[in-house]
């Protein structure tokens, strides 16, 4: 099991979190094309290596987190609250 160091709650087992997948940015709904929307919905980088992904601390602070993780070694490089990222 992974240990994720939550910026609010400290080190916690990954089963406290739900994994929401690799980060992607949603195209503007009003102007997107079907092809762009399909890419957003389905196509993934599925990187073997460093991946920026989103987790939700469902059994903790219930904050959304941006996590940088190596998908080959499972090493977690950084964990940040998405609000902090947006700032």
């Amino acid at each position, binding site marked *: *099991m992974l240990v994720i160091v939550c910026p609010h709650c400290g080190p916690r087992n990954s*089963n406290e979190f739900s994994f929401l997948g*690799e980060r992607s940015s949603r195209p503007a709904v009003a102007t997107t094309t079907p*092809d762009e929307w*399909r890419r957003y919905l*389905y*196509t*993934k980088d*599925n990187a073997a290596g460093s991946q920026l992904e989103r987790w939700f601390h469902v059994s903790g602070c219930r904050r959304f987190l941006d996590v940088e993780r190596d998908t080959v070694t499972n090493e977690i490089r950084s964990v940040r609250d998405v609000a902090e990222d947006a700032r």
Partner: protein
Amino acid sequence: MARYPSRYSALSLLRKGATRSNWPRAWRHHELKSSYDVVIIGGGLHGLATAYYLARNHGITNVAVLEKAYIGGGGSGRNTAIVRSNYLTPEGSAFYDRSVQLYEGLTEDLNFNIMFEQRGHMTLAHNDASLRTMRWRAEVNKLGGIDSKVISPAEVKELAPAIDISDRPRYPIHGALWHPPGGIVRHDAVVWGYARGADARGAHIHQGTEVTGIDVAGDRVIGVQTSHGPVATPIVINCTAGWSTLIADMAGVQLPITTRPLQAAVTEPVQPFLDPVIVSGTLHVYVSQTARGELVFGASVDPYSSYSSRGSLGFTEGLAGHVLELMPGISKMRLLRQWAGLCDMTPDFGPIIGPTPVDGFYVDVGWGTYGFKAGPVAGEQVAAMVATGAIPELIASFGLERFEEGALTAEKGAAAVGH
């Protein structure tokens, strides 16, 4: 039909024993040629079956199977060897039923004992919603001529006395979907049998040969780069699992796939006591007893994507708890080992088989947690597609274009235990 280099039979066993002579290698080593008619990436069940059926059904023998490690070392050797066809959609169940038919004749066809034991496959229902889906599945299956029905807890107990059908567990058993043709196979034997059959018919199997690039000119495949040099070819088939998106990236094709590990474990061997394969979606576990007497357990995919095949304690703890809910009598059994395999998960729990926007680059990927049971039919149909240039009816609904057209398959309810 080409003759096998050495046919396996009781007579040849007797002769080899009496003369104390060695068996020839089941498949040979070849030097990598500079060009092939077809290059298959991935020496697992799907790649080797495709090579076999290309030769057997279509006479295409100038074929290379490129495997970066050793054959059958990925998903083909890490699955829990379950075969069944009681899927939810008519397309899904027809497809997997063809696979069951091929498995039934495979020992004879390959002249290699794959040890297919059709001991029945039982999916337990722990709530009304599961029971409703099972009735639905049973009716779809019956219409397709597949032996599948809903049974009561008392019948569950009769078929598998070790199962606790009382109201002691947190999720008592309300019934089950019973599928008598389902069962287990020795998975290594299927890989070796196809390798031997493909080799005997002329295909070259190159182990320790990693594909490092795919050459595309315009929008056509013209060859591959490997760790042993370049190979020219007009047709490349991506039969990898786990790494399928990395291979497709080399050809500039993006796939809607994420890689997730799935963990499994095996106990020490004991006397035979469990005949059918038992599956519980609610408890995220499936279990069968091998011919050697070990219990093999599998679970749902790990809760996050990863290319790591390390096992975790969290899995073992969860597994033990769930299995003891089903069979409290095995609490003293010891686990021998656990492992993980990489699963290519697609958004709709259906595989991706067919051509891609790059001419000559085909995919047979996205096999999630159901690739082993589909190996023979996928090999047969992909071979037919490549040989004839037309997409066979059985795989028509599994094309990559479905994600553009919105024609997703709806197989999640019957394809995996983790949902």
